């Protein structure tokens, strides 16, 4: 195990691909490190979309936890992938996407836990997009508002997100992913967290089902199915 705890702490990039613990994804291709051939017109952007670019995320899981555990209980990281600062920013972005009102929003229902857990699993190909995209987002916000996103007033937060969504952020700060692609990624994952099964980390207590007035959970044969 390399010193992934240090990598996590500083949010820098690991040179080795992370170990992915889910057996479904752990299956290797025929070669240990498959090189994915690409046609001449097949851009890196397309490759990223298709999830072909080697993942450059920090390590998740066992190694880092053990390393940090030795430092004492207080230092145990709250997230598998995100740094505290990244998580704080991402939570705030997700909350704008599904805000709390009389029904819980993204923060309360655990969007960050869904994303953090799934990108150390089936969504691992998006690690780089999150790491790079959150940094681009942070810098964009500083440049435009001269203040961190968390400190903006509600209308400025929405204005900022609309700029990211419409890909109107300064191009110099956004390469891969583009601002629009990053937004769409967070949008999709926030929706998944909010409406997906709670077993994946989000939708705490089936909040979205309660919001929509749907029976929850689905128990075969035991919900109120009318007789046909």
């Amino acid at each position, binding site marked *: 195990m390399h010193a992934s705890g240090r990598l996590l702490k500083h949010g820098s990039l690991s040179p080795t691909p992370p170990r992915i613990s889910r057996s*479904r*994804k752990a*299956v*290797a*291709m*025929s070669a240990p490190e498959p090189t*994915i*051939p*690409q*046609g*001449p*017109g*097949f*851009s890196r952007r*397309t*490759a990223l979309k*298709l*999830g*072909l670019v080697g993942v450059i995320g920090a390590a998740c899981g066992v190694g880092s936890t053990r390393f940090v555990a030795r430092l004492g209980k207080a230092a145990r990281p709250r997230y598998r992938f995100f740094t505290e600062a990244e998580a704080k920013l991402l939570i705030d972005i997700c909350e*704008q*996407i*599904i*805000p709390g*009102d009389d*029904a819980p*929003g993204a923060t309360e229902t655990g969007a960050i836990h869904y994303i953090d857990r*799934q990108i150390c*699993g*089936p*969504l691992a190909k998006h690690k780089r997009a999150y790491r790079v995209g959150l940094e681009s987002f942070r810098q964009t916000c500083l440049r435009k508002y001269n203040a961190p996103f968390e400190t903006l007033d509600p209308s400025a937060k*929405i204005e900022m*997100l609309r700029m990211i969504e419409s890909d109107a952020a300064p191009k110099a700060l956004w390469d891969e992913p583009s601002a629009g692609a990053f937004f769409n990624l967070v*949008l*999709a994952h*926030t*929706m*998944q967290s909010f*409406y*997906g*099964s709670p*077993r*994946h980390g989000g939708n705490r207590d089936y909040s*979205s*089902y309660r*919001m*929509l*007035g*749907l*029976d929850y959970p*689905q128990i*075969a*044969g035991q*919900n*109120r*199915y*009318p007789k*046909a």
Partner: protein
Amino acid sequence: MNLKHVNAIVVGAGAGGGVVAKELSEAGLSVVLLERGEWVSFETYGQDELINQRTTVLGNAYGPDDRSPRVIETSPGTWGVVMPNEGGYSNNAACVGSGTVSYGAMGWRYMEKDFKMRSTYGAPEGSTLEDWPISYADLEPCYHKAEQEVGVSGDMSTNPFAAPRKDPYPMPAFPYNHEGRILEAAAKRLGFHPFPIPMLRNSVPYGGRNACIHNRYCCGFACPNNAKNGTHNTVIPRALASGNCELRTRSVASEVVIDDHGVARGVRYFDENDAPQYQTADLVVVSGGAIETARLLLNSKSKLFPNGAGNRYDWVGRNLQGHAYCGADGLFDEDTFDDVGSGATIAISDFNHGNPGVTGGAVLCNEFIRPPYGFTGMRPPGSPLWGKAHKDFQRRFYKRNISVRGPVQEMPVFDVRAQIDPSVRDHWGIPVVRLSGNRHPGDIDTARVIADRAEAWLKEAGAVEIWRNIPGTAAGAGQHQAGTCRMGDDPKISVTNRFGQLHDVGNMFVSDASLHVTNGGFNPALTILALGYWVSDHIKARWKAGVLT
């Protein structure tokens, strides 16, 4: 280790292969049924909104996994590798029963004109549109057998466009749900002819299994009550019970071995431990689905057929079709949702044919119940997708919307195809398939006409806001994949004869939607099952007559 020689190998335990395995084993042939996936059950993924056949963001519930990539060519020279749960892959499934485990289970017979598309419409420029070599009347007894043995609930008495049938369905039709009742009244006011969707699902106890309990999520999920009928709970268990069929799961076929005399000798495959095996047989039936069947044939190179089995004239993998899905979505001021699954209950066949100025058409049906996550993508164009507006829309309309959809029959195109990629291989080292091509522009014209009808239907039903869905140009075969090993009488423009037997290899057969010359304006499952009986009848007759090759 030498495996014991058998009479027949069937590759693929899906709709086509399941029927063939049962028919041949019950006729006394020894059969090995090879399936690359495993037995799956409802318990594995339950009703998970994010891992099912329709929403695969966290993976494929019913296989395959990342060991089976494909290459997608989005435009000439632009291509990339995609995983089975990603867009463009055109996944069906990889498990015992394949797509029939998790499908919506609509059990359609095609219409008479669906077998005579060229005679009816002529061949549009840029299309290889052709008549089937067999007619509806030829296939009718096989449709009947599929409906009886697998089990369909239906009633066509109010559908004047239905092809003639000799016997009633074995189970009564499902009643309309709330959406269906709203749409029924509107359809009648418009002069349409609504009728209940025939379902491969038990409306009453049937075949020793339960009646449907109408749980919310059906299409895309295995059934918790074993009331949805696929090959995994009907014909495959019968095949195994015959004592003549051995099912080998996690067995990935790589090649059909054809000798120097043009006779199929057996199948090479990788077993559950990834060890190479060679099973010999008197005959081979390939039922891998339109894409994997084409791949296996193309990967089966021999001295006489260096470009693959059945591929002397370069027709294997060509004419790949799915359906150009279109329709309309409508929002209502009153509740439409009643939580009675599967949710799709009503259809009209008024626009399958006879649409002025376009080729073909589609059946129109109300959609299966949309899970809340799926509903996040159902929005009028230009609507906000997030923020308080998103939440308000979900709250206001989740129970107040109806979606009407139609699978537009695609015009076959020679260059919409599955071919072997020159460099990418799967986990087992088998060259993967490369998908490419754009659908015929006429499909989009037809889709516009059908979507207009859907829109008119929803408007009459009282929708306060309606928007249409028109497919794009990129071909996507999806779960309705078909057409890659077309049956025909002329060996130069087809892959098999009218019985699914390869023109060039007398003891090798195809039995799945690869055979479809055209794919009908309907979900294809019942036609695949029926063709399984059709092909089996031919094999059994030859077997009885002692004709092996």
